[in-house]
């Protein structure tokens, strides 16, 4: 089992963001998390990426709190929702992102070859010497995706990856993710239901921090109530 979550509760500033989440995700699954804004999708993704102290999550059978930061970075990577146009060339950015593989005593001999391979997988080899702050939105998203991939983690988490993409890059990203799923377990949060239905092997619906339902195919009748306005009383529970 790649990810095991058992009765996970996350409370931030006295507000319960995740409510008793229990979930198992097998290796090579593409698992989509859907739900309205504020449902707890990003918090769930960040929990799996190790942002909160908890022992309720196991990655490949090992409790997440027992991983050190570098080990965790080699196990799980997250493409965040907000990506910045940093002032580095793509090559520099990817080499920096190999951080978990080098230390004062260890040089990372694989760095250049892995970065080249990832650039070819994501189809951005020609951008190698371009600075990220000179790229288009779609290219920037792929550059950040590549930075998530150079850690060679077995779990890849994508938070709203299609937000800033035009149809061309949305389709390109779909193909890349499908290819990646042969070697990785993928967890995606998205509002793009059409895109999700083309890619996900399982869909988990969140509402008010709890799992509302799980399905393999998106059904309009199931989804419609999910996005109904949330009542204040529902959140406060």
């Amino acid at each position, binding site marked *: 089992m790649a990810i095991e979550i058992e009765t996970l509760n996350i409370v931030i500033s006295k507000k319960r963001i995740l409510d008793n989440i229990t979930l198992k995700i097998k290796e090579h699954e593409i698992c989509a998390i859907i739900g309205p804004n504020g449902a707890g999708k990003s918090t769930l993704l960040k929990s799996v990426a190790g942002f909160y102290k908890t022992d309720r999550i196991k990655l490949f059978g090992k409790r997440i709190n027992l991983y050190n*930061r570098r080990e965790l970075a080699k196990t799980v990577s997250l493409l965040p929702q*907000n990506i910045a146009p940093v002032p580095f060339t793509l090559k520099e950015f990817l080499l920096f992102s190999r*951080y978990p593989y080098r230390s004062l005593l260890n040089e990372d001999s694989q760095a250049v070859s892995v970065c080249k391979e990832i650039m070819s997988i994501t189809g951005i080899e020609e951008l190698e010497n371009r600075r990220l702050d000179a790229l288009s939105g779609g290219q920037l998203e792929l550059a950040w995706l590549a930075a998530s991939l150079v850690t060679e983690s077995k779990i890849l988490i994508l938070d709203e990856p299609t937000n800033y993409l035009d149809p061309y890059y949305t389709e390109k990203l779909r193909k890349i993710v499908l290819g990646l799923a042969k070697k990785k377990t993928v967890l995606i949060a998205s509002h793009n239901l059409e895109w999700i239905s083309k890619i996900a092997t399982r869909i988990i619906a969140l509402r008010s921090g709890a799992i509302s339902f799980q399905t393999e195919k998106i059904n309009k009748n199931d989804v419609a109530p999910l996005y109904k306005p949330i009542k204040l009383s529902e959140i406060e529970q």
Partner: protein
Amino acid sequence: MHTKAKSRLIFILFFSIVTTAVMLFLRNYGNNVIFYEIRIPEILLAFFAGAGLSVNGAVFQTLFRNDLATPYILGIASAAAFGAAIGIQAGITSQIFLSAAAFIAAIFATIAVFAFGGISKRPGGLLLAGVALNFFFASAIMLMQYLANFTVSFEIIRWLMGNLSIIGYNKVYLLIPTVILSSFAIFRFYDELNLLVAGEEFAKIHGVNISSVKTALFFLTSLSTAIIVSIVGPIGFVGMMVPHIIKLIVGKDHKFVLAGSFFFGGFFLAASSEIGKIVVPPAQIPTGIITSLLGGPFFLWLLIRKRN
């Protein structure tokens, strides 16, 4: 890209060291005592103070993701100035004790910024705590000047303008090891600083232990700034200008930015100090005035450049 940055960095090192060495031989008047007891210590003092301030500035610009951030915004310089002002007011004439007073106040400010900034638990809490302390200490100095007699008031003002004129090596012996050791320790974090450019979230995902890296960097920069300010006075703008100039030349990889800032910062402050001495002889314009005169227009240029 990297070879280009590397060769540019080597040029900066060469340029900074050679020009600083040339400055050493100016204004000696063929006198050995002046050369060994005044020229060498004052150039060393200016070089290492500038080097330390510039490295610290480069670190702060990345940690706060703000082009204008330097340790000065954390109120450490004002606190050190306040400490020295108290010393002057209390009639302390020994430079060593005056430095100690400034140093104690600076360390107190660092701890206070950490304590209040940490308690607030909000993004930018540290920055806000620093700004608040800065205002507090600046006002306290003004109050002290207002209450002091004319001579003491003038002494305080003179110290606040930054003072790189020294005789002998006492201060140099304290400054050089501090700046070299702290800058070397900071340099070991270049990898983490590169990841922090893309944001704390990104660095954390890629395996950086954010809280321990930030604590170590704040401690090192605060300590080094406190000692520099306690010796040469609050010389502003060096820490802001130098890293910017270096980034324009060698790019944004911190391996090159930190090394370049160290050497060019050293040259920059030594040159500012020399300019202050030769502009209106025999008077010496305090170095802090020279750097601020350069810093103001630079600040505005940065604003316009960003807009374009």
